[in-house]
């Protein structure tokens, strides 16, 4: 028993735990439960995003476009402590919520495929209506999986199958991906080579649900209507392209045993038998069974898939990512949380709006995309956590190994049981064929008898009157013996009667023969019945044994999968913790490396200084050598030319020699010798000084490599540190410690451009005015909330219809190819060229209708103009630096302010901050 009580905007679920009589437990609100599961490693403290960021984020996620500048201004200024929660409720109440969610579901379900059998308008209207009614996800999914598109009310959901050309393999792949989060495409031809968990039987088991369905083109009064019709299902045969072993399967849900299907004798499978232009109705519809089993709340893969996809919608990536690759090698980052979400969502009756609301209320959703602060302080906690996690890991690893081994064993056992069933199943097929054949023969014999009887009776009905006529004519001829003509006639009729009697005899004989033939064909048919019975009773226990083995295999597999996921998540957390713990070390290494640079720089500088210091000595020595050389030359000249020449010498030290020489003219030779000695001595001093200089120069050179090494070390340490932080950022993005940058979808981009350039609101106002004119609401009606909501929805629809023609342009440039996964981001030059040179964007940013460009142009206070600009386009106030940038931009361009304002709007519109939801 489940009871629903909504309290103060928070849903509290009361669940009877184990039965009546036990206390009712009040479950914790889902959003706080989520936050408990998303505790960051160690004591890392995630930052909370700003109000402006929250406003833009929540608006884009819930209504598909940012708020107006005015709304942004009001929200940022508001002081209520619960303004974020109020905002969330306002957004859910907006007519844009249904539109946006319908678009999100459309892209998720159809991946922007073209419309062939169901028009875009019908499909979108159906989705929109479903979201407005807050149709539970399982109901929506059931309608999609079940409908044949015949009933007009259920025609739109048939788009899922019909616009995939009803191709069973395409449908199997996409149902697997979109409803169960598993891309089993590779398992079409063999057990998945890379994904241990996807077996060929998983693929073919799902295919068996889909393969009886086909596109039936039915003529209806000259018009043709394509339906997703269904025939009676049969087992599928398949074989691995690697192993070549033949296998067979009936319909199987992911992670479930083959379904128990009622046994029908051939010819007995249909309520309405297939025929030309007739939609057959099988007694057992596999498609209906798939729809039921998927959506009844018991299928974990179905439940986990949708919560993961809704999570990815809000958080930018799934707990399992990519969202359609859920398997042990791509485990959920937080498997326990995924389980909790799936359980809760099912017990919330698959209420998408209530679930999204819980996600929006989490602290995790309100985290900033900035990295956590104070990282260096947490190393101690990290170390303690590592020890704890490592201890836990050993136990988890062993459990995982054991359950993995158990799965292997169970898998083999199941394959054996399956192999044992195969011949018996083949015999049953043969018996069914024999039965069909014998039944056909018997039916033919019966038909032949009734046919012969009909012919005989027809003939007999002629024989009697002719016989009577013959007898009467004969008597008449006897009565009038002379009448030759009468005699001739009597003869003719008698002959005719005789012939007829022969014919009747032949027909009677044929009738008797054919009647006799019924016996053997009935006997033959009767003989086949026990064969079928025998084959069935032979196959049944083998089938049961196979199902039993499969049950065990699946239980073992789900245990192994769960254990592997827990281990992987633990490993991930452990690794993240290790990396957090390593950051301070890397940082210290960087600091130390930085620290080693200055002393090395001083060493180089000191050596350089010594080198520089020796320069005067070198100059001096050099000069001394020059003087001594000149002295020697002078002395030699004097020795030749006498003292007069010597007097001209200007240098004192040389003069001393000269005067000595002059005083003792007789010893010129001795003086010359002394000058030579002086030169030698000066040269020696110079050589010593040069040697010293060379030594010092070498010392400088010797010191340089050490400095270069230190600098290289700094660069290496910096790079190691950056890499570590960058990788940690990726990890934090995966575990939701920091917010992801979510690229706007093509649709979001289109509506966001329309919102911030004022195009949207201009159209909205025109439509509102038009409605007010044509069908004004009375004052009474304006007080009726239902009327107000309906009017809002009507205006939204009209505005959407007027502008939706622009969406395909954005899809062409910013969307992935139709039918491909739509989540991957890509940026190409042709997008930037469209933004820069394409006619439309430049047109929209022109000043018009009081849009942001016009408001900037009209605002004479340039600082206020900057506020207007940033609030209008980026939903935040500019920084001081940004204000002065805008002020100077507009001041310099005063003469053409209009063009300048347009450039500014364009610049913001094409910034990364605009392109991403952050």
């Amino acid at each position, binding site marked *: 028993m489940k009871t629903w009580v909504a309290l103060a905007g928070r849903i509290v679920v009361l669940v009877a735990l184990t039965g009546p009589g036990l206390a009712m437990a009040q479950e914790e609100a889902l959003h706080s439960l989520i936050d408990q599961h998303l505790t960051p490693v160690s004591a890392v403290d995630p930052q909370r995003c700003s109000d402006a960021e929250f406003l833009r984020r929540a608006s884009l996620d819930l209504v598909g476009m940012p708020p107006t500048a005015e709304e942004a201004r009001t929200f940022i200024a508001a002081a209520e402590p619960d303004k974020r929660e109020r905002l969330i409720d306002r957004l859910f109440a907006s007519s844009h919520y249904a539109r946006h969610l319908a678009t999100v579901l459309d892209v998720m379900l159809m991946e922007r495929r073209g419309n062939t059998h169901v028009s875009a308008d019908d499909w979108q209207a159906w989705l929109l209506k479903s979201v407005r009614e807050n149709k539970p996800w399982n109901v929506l999914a059931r309608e999609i999986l079940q409908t044949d598109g015949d009933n007009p009310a259920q025609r739109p959901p048939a788009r899922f199958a019909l616009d995939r050309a009803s*191709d069973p*393999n395409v449908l*199997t*792949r996409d149902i697997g991906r979109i409803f169960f989060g598993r891309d089993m*495409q590779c398992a*079409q031809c063999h057990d998945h080579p*890379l994904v241990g968990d996807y077996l060929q039987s998983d693929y073919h088991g799902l295919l068996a649900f889909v393969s009886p369905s086909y596109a039936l083109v039915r003529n209806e009064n000259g018009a043709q209507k394509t339906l997703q019709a269904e025939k009676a299902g049969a087992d599928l045969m398949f074989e691995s392209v690697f192993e070549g072993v033949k296998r067979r399967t009936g319909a199987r849900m992911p992670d479930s045993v083959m379904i128990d299907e009622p046994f029908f004798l051939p010819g007995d499978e249909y309520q309405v038998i297939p025929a030309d232009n007739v939609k057959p109705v099988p007694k057992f519809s596999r498609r209906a069974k798939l729809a039921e089993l998927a959506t009844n709340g018991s299928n974990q893969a179905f439940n986990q898939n949708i919560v993961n996809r809704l999570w990815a919608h809000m958080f930018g990536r799934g707990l399992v990512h*990519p969202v359609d*690759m859920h398997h042990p090698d*791509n485990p959920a980052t937080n498997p326990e949380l995924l389980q909790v979400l799936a359980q809760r969502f099912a017990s919330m009756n698959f209420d998408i709006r209530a679930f999204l609301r819980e996600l929006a209320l989490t602290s995790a959703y309100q985290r900033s*995309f900035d*990295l956590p602060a*104070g990282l*260096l302080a947490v190393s101690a906690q990290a170390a303690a956590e590592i020890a704890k996690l490592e201890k836990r890991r050993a136990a988890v690893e062993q459990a995982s190994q054991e359950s993995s081994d158990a799965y292997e064993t169970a898998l083999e056992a199941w394959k054996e049981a399956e192999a044992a069933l195969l011949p018996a199943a083949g015999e049953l097929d043969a018996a069914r064929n024999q039965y069909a054949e014998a039944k056909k023969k018997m039916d033919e014999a019966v038909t032949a008898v009734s046919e012969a009887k009909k012919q005989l009776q027809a003939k007999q009905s002629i024989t009697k009157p002719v016989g009577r006529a013959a007898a009467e004519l004969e008597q008449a001829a006897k009565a009038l013996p002379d009448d030759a003509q009468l005699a001739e006639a009597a003869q003719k009729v008698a002959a005719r009667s005789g012939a007829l009697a022969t014919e009747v005899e032949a027909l009677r004989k044929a009738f008797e023969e054919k009647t006799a033939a019924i016996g053997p064909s009935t006997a033959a048919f009767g003989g086949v019945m026990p064969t079928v019975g025998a084959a069935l009773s032979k196959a049944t226990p083998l089938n049961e044994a196979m199902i039993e083995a499969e049950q065990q295999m699946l239980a073992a597999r789900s245990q192994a999968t769960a254990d592997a996921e827990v281990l992987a998540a633990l490993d991930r957390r452990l690794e993240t913790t290790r990396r957090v713990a390593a950051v301070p070390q890397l940082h210290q290494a960087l600091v130390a490396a930085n620290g080693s640079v200055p002393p090395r720089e001083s060493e180089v500088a000191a050596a350089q200084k010594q080198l520089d210091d020796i320069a005067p000595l070198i100059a001096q020595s050099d000069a001394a050598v020059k003087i001594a050389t000149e002295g020697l030359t002078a002395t030699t000249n004097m020795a030749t030319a006498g003292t007069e020449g010597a007097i001209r010498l200007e240098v004192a030290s040389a003069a001393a020699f000269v005067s000595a020489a002059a005083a003792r003219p007789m010893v010129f030779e001795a003086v010359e010798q002394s000058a030579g000695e002086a030169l030698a001595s000066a040269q020696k001093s110079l050589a010593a000084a040069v040697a010293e200089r060379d030594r010092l120069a070498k010392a400088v050179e010797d010191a340089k490599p050490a400095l270069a090494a230190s600098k290289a070390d700094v*660069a290496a340490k*910096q*790079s190691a540190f*950056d*890499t570590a932080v*960058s990788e940690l*950022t990726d990890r934090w993005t995966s575990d939701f410690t920091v917010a992801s*940058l979510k*690229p706007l979808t093509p649709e979001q981009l289109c509506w966001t451009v329309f919102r911030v350039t004022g195009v949207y609101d201009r159209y909205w106002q025109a439509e509102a005015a038009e409605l007010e004119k044509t069908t004004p609401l009375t004052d009474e009606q304006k007080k009726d909330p239902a009327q107000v909501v309906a009017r809002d929805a009507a205006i939204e629809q009209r505005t959407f219809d007027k502008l939706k023609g622009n969406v395909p342009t954005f899809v*062409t*440039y910013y*969307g*992935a*190819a139709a*039918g*491909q996964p739509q989540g*991957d*981001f*890509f*940026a*190409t*030059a*042709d*997008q*930037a*060229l*469209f933004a*820069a*040179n394409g006619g439309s964007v430049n047109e929209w940013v022109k000043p018009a209708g009081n849009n942001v460009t016009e408001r900037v142009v009209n605002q004479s206070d340039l600082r206020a103009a900057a506020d207007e600009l940033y609030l209008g386009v980026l939903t935040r106030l500019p*920084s001081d630096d*940004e204000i002065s*940038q805008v002020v100077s931009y507009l001041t310099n*361009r005063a003469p053409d302010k209009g*063009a*300048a304002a347009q*450039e*500014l709007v*364009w*610049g*913001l519109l*094409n*910034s*990364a*901050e605009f392109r*991403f939801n*952050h």
Partner: protein
Amino acid sequence: MNIHYACKSLEHRIARRQFLGTMAAAGAGAMTGGLGVFSNRAIAEQLRSDQKRIVVFNMHGGLSQLESWDPKPGTATGGPFRAIGTSVPGIHISELLPQTAKQMHHLCLVRGVNTSEDDHGKGAYLMLTGRRQTPASEYPQIGAVATKALAPAESSLPGHILITPGGSGGRGNDAAYLGPKYSSIYLGNGNPPQNTTRPESMTEASDVARQDFRRYVNERFLNRRRTAVTDAFTYSFEQAHQLMQQRDVFDVTKEPEKDAERYGKHDFGRHCLLARRLLEKGVTFVQLSHSNYDTHNENFNFHIEQLGEWDRSFACFVEDMAARGMLESTLIIVLSEFGRTPNVNQYYGRDHWSRSWSICLAGARVPRGAVYGKTNADGTAVEEGQVDHGELFHTYLEAVGVDSTATFDIDGRKMPIADPAVSAVSALLT
């Protein structure tokens, strides 16, 4: 204590870019970083000289092998045309290709193609993707694969170009799971890509100013958080800018008039000359098509007419690629969706035929002046050297140095580059 996560120095930025680039190359993300480090002209040139390229001539509708690469003169199926000698003694091709015959020493004929697919759409699909079309699977075309495997990440030019006979351009839908980044850019009738000129109402100064303001706005945001994804986004604008600067690359009138004369003054001649120009400027993959060879009626007259136009342009192209030394690095592929029936029907036509037909290759690792494979006397069956689309696909890639047995990592999905069930034809690789 707070630490500084974002160092704003230039060196750091480049180091970070390289880090991100390495990540992308390792397939760690679905994104390749837009890094801008190769704006250095010398580095770009260096890359360019090593760069391998592929050009595909798609003979739309199904070229007759008997009127081209594998003539059977004098047989019941041979049709009216003679076979002529080529620049390689012993190799004969149809007399409809006299100019191409003179380039035979550069070419390699593959005469044993058997693709067993006579439907236009399916035939084209398997020849361009190397796989038979299967439900629920879509494979990227050779152009997307070659671009992902070969194009320098930093090229400002699109790597994958389709010169279409008409149309206004746009982006093709041929990259499947590789993503739109590798989709073809159409040059409608050889015109430059869309949106590569500034709007008339906007001055250059205005454009520069708004782009500068855009960069300024990005700075604050990217200092808070910078990822491969934001890099790719901001880089796309720089790439767009460079593409506009290089718009001349797409302007075939910049080629000498005498070359335009040589190639032929018709659309196809112009497209061939444009292909030469694009490949020379560093585009990785160019595909041209020539229409239409679907000659169920009047096969012989149509082939005279069509090949009469095609022969000269193609021969000039091959000759120039060889003369410019580009044949070493460029693989030329001439293919169709299939060949045509040896049997001539009552309308003097030939129908769809995929059991024994031919393609022509040249350049890169493919042997020159060679013939591989052989059909029987009347051309109805392959006698030697049979190959199919899958093996050819491997061969194309191996010819330009791509390990065709490797896999692409697409956001965690391992996708074999080519059909893992078959491999390259080693005889077609030197």
